[in-house]
């Protein structure tokens, strides 16, 4: 198996030789470093400041509650100020951070669900391909196979159009399939194949916002 990245491999602790790799490594590791720092402050309430200079001499910094604040505290050796206002400000800031962390957790969890779903779907496709030749990628099909597939697809398309017309005509009142976005672009199906009646009220939806997480059948 050809590895794309060096994850889980031991890396020698010397300056990287390849300039291109060095830049990529810097980007990735800097991002990871800030992530760890963010987690440390969240989990343990620590105050942190990190400053790094890029190979191109640009400066990146991360700080909680703020880079300047932590630097000042460090330089002046002063204990943090204990005023009422400071506490209020800090409490508000902490509440915001708490919410953001929750939001982030949510999105990450949903991402994992989608990832699993994606893997399941790929598995299904792979399994299908070994049994049905028409499920293989088109570039792997022979000429007669493509011809046969084409005929079948065109037939299916006709039926899809028929069925869609049936639903449209049968629909009275607002359609129930409205997904999330109302600001969609109507996706023109196929006007040539005697598709939809343009005088009817057509649904508006955006291909990118359709039916997520919904099973098909």
């Amino acid at each position: 198996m050809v590895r794309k990245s060096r994850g889980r491999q031991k890396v020698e602790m010397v300056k990287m030789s390849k300039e291109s790799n060095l830049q990529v490594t810097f980007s990735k590791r800097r991002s990871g470093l800030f992530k760890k720092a963010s987690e440390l402050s969240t989990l343990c309430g620590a105050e942190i400041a990190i400053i790094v200079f890029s190979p191109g001499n640009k400066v990146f910094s991360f700080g909680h509650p703020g880079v300047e604040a932590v630097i000042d505290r460090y330089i002046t050796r002063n204990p943090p100020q204990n005023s009422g206002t400071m506490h209020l400000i800090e409490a508000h800031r902490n509440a915001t951070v708490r919410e953001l962390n929750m939001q982030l957790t949510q999105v990450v969890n949903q991402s994992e669900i989608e990832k699993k779903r994606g893997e399941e779907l790929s598995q299904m496709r792979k399994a299908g391909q070994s049994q049905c030749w028409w499920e293989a990628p088109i570039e792997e099909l022979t000429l007669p196979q493509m011809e046969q597939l084409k005929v079948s697809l065109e037939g299916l398309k006709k039926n899809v159009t028929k069925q869609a017309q049936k639903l449209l005509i049968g629909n009275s009142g607002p359609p129930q399939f409205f997904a999330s976005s109302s600001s969609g672009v109507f996706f023109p199906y196929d006007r040539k194949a005697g598709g939809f009646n343009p005088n009817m009220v057509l649904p508006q939806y955006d291909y990118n916002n359709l039916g997520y997480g919904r099973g098909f059948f």
Partner: protein
Amino acid sequence: MTRKKVKLAYITNDSARKATFKKRKKGLMKKVSELSTLCGIEACAIICSPYDAQPEVWPSPLGVQRVLSQFQKLPEMEQSKKMMNQESFLRQRITKASDNLKKQRKDNREKEVTQAMFQCLTGKSLQNLNLMDLNDLGWMIDQNLKEINKRFGTFQTATTSQMAAASMAGPSGEHASQRAEVQTFEVKNDNMQRQQWIVDFLTPQEPSGIWWPG
């Protein structure tokens, strides 16, 4: 080393929090050090906690001084351009994660629709699909037809160029036999396909066959 997922919130248990702090602080320092070495860059870290009277630093107090002066010599704008705190950093992460999620959903939807297309090709009913699904299905069919037609095009040019090459080269042994080979292969395939079609056609409702309209 825990392989459990840690909840991204303040650890309320005092001893657990202290233990986590020690471990993660050590890890963080290690990561800064690695970044600095691997990329040959200047960096510093300052960590203050209720557990240490003195803030802990990397690489050393002198090293921190050096980096801090370098930092503070820069114009204000340069300093703040890539400066982040928890809020801005988390917002950035959320945006990236959301974009990634959108892409994943789009890809999964395409896979789903493709699956449905294959099922409908072998006879599954269109009854349970709503207008949105039908629209997506129609789009997917069109995409596939487009690709098939495109490949037909390349086959045409391939065979015409083959024939052109053959006629140009004259009845030379190599070209003629190559062409013949291609033709026999296609003919053989045709026969096999025809047999398969007939079998499928004659076997009613065979789920493994291609569904014929009408």
